[in-house]
Each structure stands twice: as C-alpha cells, then as structure tokens.
C-alpha cells in the first residue's frame, strides 16, 4: 500500500520535470530561430556599411603621402597591433575635430587578405571616416626608411606633415594625444585651432 502511494508521486515529479524540460528546449529553439532571423538583416546592413579600403604598393604610398595645401596626418597601424587599436578612438576624434583643416589618412599594414574583412570591419566599429589604405609591399624595409628615418618598423607609427610636405612631428608607439593636438595646432592658422 505504501509503495502504491509513493509511485504516483514519483511519476508526477517525472512528468512535471519532463514537461518543463520540453518547454525549456522549445523556448530555446524559438529564441535561436528568432535570433537567426533578426541577425540576417543586421549582418547585411553591416556588410553594406563597411568603409572602402584601398590597396597601395610602395609607389602608391609615395603618392598618398603628398600634401595638398594642408597639413597631412598619417597613421600606420594594423588590426593585430593592440596599441594601434587602443589609440584609434582618439585619432577618430582628431579627424572629427579638425575636419577640413587637416588631411588625415590611415595606412594599415595588415595582410592583404584583410583588405575587405578585418580592416574595414575595425574601421566601421571605430566609425572612422578618414581615407583608408592598406599597404602591400615586398619592400617593407625600403618603405619604412622612405617614410621617416625615425620609424624603425614598430607600430603604430604616426607622422604629421606640414602643408609643404615637411615632417612636423612623428612618433612610433601610441601617440600622446595632447602632444599631437599641439603639433597640429602649430601648423594651423589661429582662427581654425
């Protein structure tokens, strides 16, 4: 009699547990399906918004480093370089703050395979609007020397040219943002600082 009494209680527990289990998995599957449906347009939207990154070689780099009547700021970076990623938000802010008074370009030294993936994805995350390039060359050593005698090959490297194309400031490693702003300001008429 005792056993008969216990059995239905156990059975009821098992049934309730089973029911809850089914509910849990149903909810989980539904939520995943919803997520999957939601994620599709988002991904498409992100892909459409990726900024253009132009591949340049050593001679192409020479051309983009020419000034055009304004100071030119150039940041050499790579997605794998932690200090580069860390300083990027500050550089984006500089670009926004100085607007048309300063030309600012970024040159990625990532592998060319990142031209349409890692590099534009990072730039999109940063909301970077500066013209973006990816340097692909077999003559890294020569290129480094041609950019600046002060660049020994480490990243990031930031260089500021005055309107005539002369180097006004350069730094290997993370920039000190106040110092960079001060250097840019020196090149601008008082009215636009």
């Amino acid at each position: 009699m005792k056993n008969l009494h216990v059995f239905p209680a156990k059975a009821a527990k098992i049934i309730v547990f089973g029911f809850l289990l089914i509910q849990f998995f149903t909810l989980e599957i539904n939520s995943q399906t919803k997520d999957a449906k939601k994620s599709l347009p988002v991904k498409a939207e992100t892909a459409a918004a990726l900024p253009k990154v132009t591949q340049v070689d050593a001679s192409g780099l020479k051309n983009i480093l020419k000034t055009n009547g304004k100071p030119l700021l150039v940041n050499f970076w790579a997605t794998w370089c932690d200090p580069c990623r860390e300083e990027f938000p500050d550089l984006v802010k500089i670009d926004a703050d100085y607007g048309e008074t300063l030309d600012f370009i970024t040159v990625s030294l990532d592998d060319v395979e990142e031209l349409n993936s890692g590099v534009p994805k990072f730039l999109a995350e940063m909301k970077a609007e500066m013209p973006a390039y990816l340097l692909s060359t077999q003559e890294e050593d020569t290129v480094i020397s041609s950019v600046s005698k002060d660049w020994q090959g480490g990243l990031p490297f930031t260089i500021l040219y005055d309107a005539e194309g002369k180097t006004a400031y350069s730094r290997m490693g993370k920039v000190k943002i106040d110092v960079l702003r001060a250097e840019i300001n020196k090149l601008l008429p008082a009215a636009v600082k």
Partner: protein
Amino acid sequence: MKRINILIVAIVAVFAFASAGKAQSNFAVGATLEDFTLSDTNGKSRSFNQLKGKNGTVLVFLSAQCPVVKMYNERISKIAADYAAKGINFIGINSNVTESLEWVKSNAEENYKFPVLIDKGNVWADKLGATVTPEVYFFNEKNALLYHGAIDNDRSGKNISDNFLRAAFDAKLEGKTISKTKSNAFGCTIKRVNG
C-alpha cells in the same frame, strides 16, 4: 596593501601602453657587446659569453604575443637549426613588460630550442636600441655587431626575396663582406617599462 599593489600594476600598465618604443642608443654595426648575464625562462642565470657560438651569435628580440613574431617563429627555428651546426648560436631575449614569465616560458618551450632570456626593465633593449619584435643582432665570435635588423624582407614568409640574416651568416662564414649590415625590422613595438 592590496590597493598599493593594484596601483603599482596600474601605473606599470599605463607606462607600458604609453610606451613610445623609441630607444636612444648608439649601438651600431661594428660596436662590441660587453658580456652580460640574465635569467632564462627557468630562472637560471645565463651569460652571453657562455651561450655564444664559435662562429657568431644572434640575439633575437622576441614576444610571446606579437603576431609578427608568430609568423616568423617557424623561420627562426629553421634558421637557428640550420646554422647551429655551423657554429652560430641563437639567444632569444624578451623585454616586454606586458608578458609574464609563465607566458614567455610556455611560448619559448613551444617554439624555440635555444634559450630565451628575460630582460627585466628592458635594460638590454635600451642598451642595444631594439625597438620591435622580431629584431635581430648578429655578432661575430669577438662580440662585434655585424648585422642588425630584420630576419628577411617579408613577414608573411610568402614572398621572401631577401634573406638578410642568412645572407649575413653565409658571408661571415665564407669570410666575405656582409653586403647589407642594417635593415628596418618590422613588427610589434617592444612594451617598455617607460616611454
């Protein structure tokens, strides 16, 4: 006490990340390296003169996390193995304040057959003017610097047209003049304790 420790770690981290990486050094090709002693990844004191090769020695600045070093690791091991038999020894050196001993040790055990020394306070990176990883210094048997810079001209390893370091080794071993004694090493900035 805990707060002080956290503060110290934070200060060190700030300095490390703010590092300019530009080392002031007059150590150029032709200069002679004084003997020095550092601990290896097992905590054992090792001197340069104990580790050097009979025909020359390479001091290679490494990092456990740098992607460029990772791309070079296989090539570094191959060159080290190829020239160990010819009397040229490799010594690794890690000067990055951001990399723990455990990390450097496991990375060294995984990738290199030569010892890796720990350059606390980036003393030797400063003395030699090393700025990036990987960056090599090739010395002759009298510890005079023969070549400084990159291992080759292509970090990816796919399109190497100049094997700078191998060329320097071969010229040295053949008693010829090394045609390129200096190149720019491309890689990750050494994370120093101060800028």
